[in-house]
């Protein structure tokens, strides 16, 4: 049995002036100064995204904040089947079903809360929904808020988006 030896390319030995670093440091300073000056003069070179005003376009499959879809008449499309809350690994969806005022719909969610603090944005709920009633295509994160209660999204908030 032979032991395999892999030759790894070593960095080349430094020449004497390089090993003094003096010139190299000055060169480095030149590079950074170049960036500094060009960025002051030409602001386009700056990569920063000015966050709240400018938003990075999200890829189409990005899983963001949830929203509940509406029927044509504005009622929630959700029929409170509990599939999403059953699939949810974080157990953060609370549904209370009720008899819908619309007899053709029969069942609808009286309460539909998502605890965004517990949600792991896995998208299982969207996958599980037989009615395409819940989506995560808002292209946006959960915004921060100052109380826990405000981050438990109720059916009204979810329908708005």
């Amino acid at each position, binding site marked *: 049995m032979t032991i395999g030896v892999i030759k790894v390319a070593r960095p080349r030995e430094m020449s004497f002036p390089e090993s003094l670093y003096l010139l190299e440091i000055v060169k480095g300073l030149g590079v950074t100064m170049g960036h500094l000056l060009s960025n002051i003069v030409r602001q386009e070179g700056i990569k920063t995204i000015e966050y709240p005003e400018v938003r990075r376009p999200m890829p189409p499959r990005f899983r963001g904040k949830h929203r509940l879809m509406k029927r044509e008449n504005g009622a929630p499309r959700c029929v409170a089947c509990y599939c999403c809350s059953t699939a949810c690994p974080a157990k953060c969806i609370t549904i209370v*079903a009720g008899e819908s005022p619309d007899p053709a719909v029969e*069942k609808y969610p009286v309460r539909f809360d998502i605890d965004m603090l517990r949600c792991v944005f896995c998208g299982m709920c969207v996958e599980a929904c037989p009615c395409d009633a819940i989506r995560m295509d808002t292209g946006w994160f959960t915004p921060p808020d100052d109380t826990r209660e405000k981050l438990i999204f109720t059916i009204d908030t979810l329908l708005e988006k």
Partner: protein
Amino acid sequence: MPTLTLNGMTVDVPPGTSILDAAKQVGVEIPHYCYHPKLSVAGNCRMCLVEIEKFPKLQTACSTVVNDGMVVRTDTEKVRKAVTGVLELMLIHHPIDCPICDQAGECGLQDYYMKFGLHKSRYALEDKVHKKKVQDIGGQVVLDAERCILCSRCVRFLAEVTGTRELDFFNRGDHSEISIFPGKPLDNNYTGNLADICPVGALTSKDFRFRCRVWLLKAFDSICTGCSKGCNVDAHFKGDILYRLKPRWNDAVNQAWMCDFGRLTYKEMNEARLLTPFVREEGARKVAAWGSLLPDVAFRLKATADKSGADRVAVIASPQSSNEELYLLRRLATELLGTKNLAFTHRVAGDGFADDFLIQADKNPNSRGAQLLGIPDGAVFDALVSKISAGGIDALLVFGNVLGALSEEETAALLANVPFVAQVGTNEGPVSKAATAVLPSASVAERGGTFTSHVGRVQRFRFGFPARGKAKNPVEILVSLGNRLGAGWSFAGEASVFRALAESEAPFAGMSYDSIGMLGQEIKT
């Protein structure tokens, strides 16, 4: 005995056994919808088709009786194709309402589709025949004719079990549907069973409608507390909330059925429960701690017995208590307090309706047990009540939420004659509104024990989930009261109490939780 060869296995079955039943014995599942063991065989759903050697066509397993030497196969391509075809036919006009259907999760169509179907629909959505949905047909069920697969189980149940025949098929072909006769809603006391036997979501429970998804429920074995029949039930719960009761098969008691009244008794275990111990001081409730209330109650009972004589202390038992609790209570009253004032009553407010099937006039699950344990009923109870109203009792320990058939006012007036009333009860009621000290008790779902049915069948109900609030198992309450009265009991849990009970009480002699098992055991008479 005829011998059947099924998929290569051989099995001996009694004459007259159907292939479907025989297959069950060897653990082969033959899909079926219309067949129900407790109903006559109809053979109309065609799901149970099997291949029998020397038969040119497939045969229905539910209606074909085993002959000696029969060779049956359920695993051939021919059978599979036939079953898939039958299923597809059933689903042609099916609305596939699963998201809003309460049957989803325990639905025959879903189960068999996953096992035998998995086909794509070949039928256009627009061509589906629509029938009337969400029909209130009376009783405890809602009918959705669209979901019906026309298995006729419900028709046969109403014809053969209740004999009331309210449902039947109407129209033909694609348009045939199940319905009641115009203006004649379901009218019997067993309508809830229709939702159980309907293999799909055509008949679903009104009470359970949309309340929970069945896959979220857990179940435990229990006994219905609605009457002294002692129907075996499965209690379904989530968290600490009971959602429904379903009959548990017991051929000796309720077969596969239960009555509508009993089905709703679970509500009592959810609503208006006593959750914290409290005392009543100058008419106002004051929350008390178990640690101080139990010694207080024991002390009051003891002090009254010592000072004014045991004759001025009384104990009222409850036929809602288990055998174990009644046994301890009797010993507490007679041995520890030394009083003869011990009685119970099986009477309840209302008419005490009974029929010749399941429903019994006695609306308590354990009146028989109380009698067998030597706690007197009837006249003795009436005498005790008169004694109380005459002011002859100074300290009273009451089990149960009501005093027989007495109304709230009557109860309040009666108990006003007693300076100290301690109650062990599960729910708010006439007694808790008048008692001086209230000790909340675990409900039937929150404790274990045995009831003795009206025919003397001892049956176990099991612990489902921990008691709500600060409620305690009454066995625990009794043991702790007894020990404060000097009993020196070392019982831990109802099983140990039952062992002692079986040793000392003749009717229960030789019984144990093991011998009672799932289905109960009759006492020796």
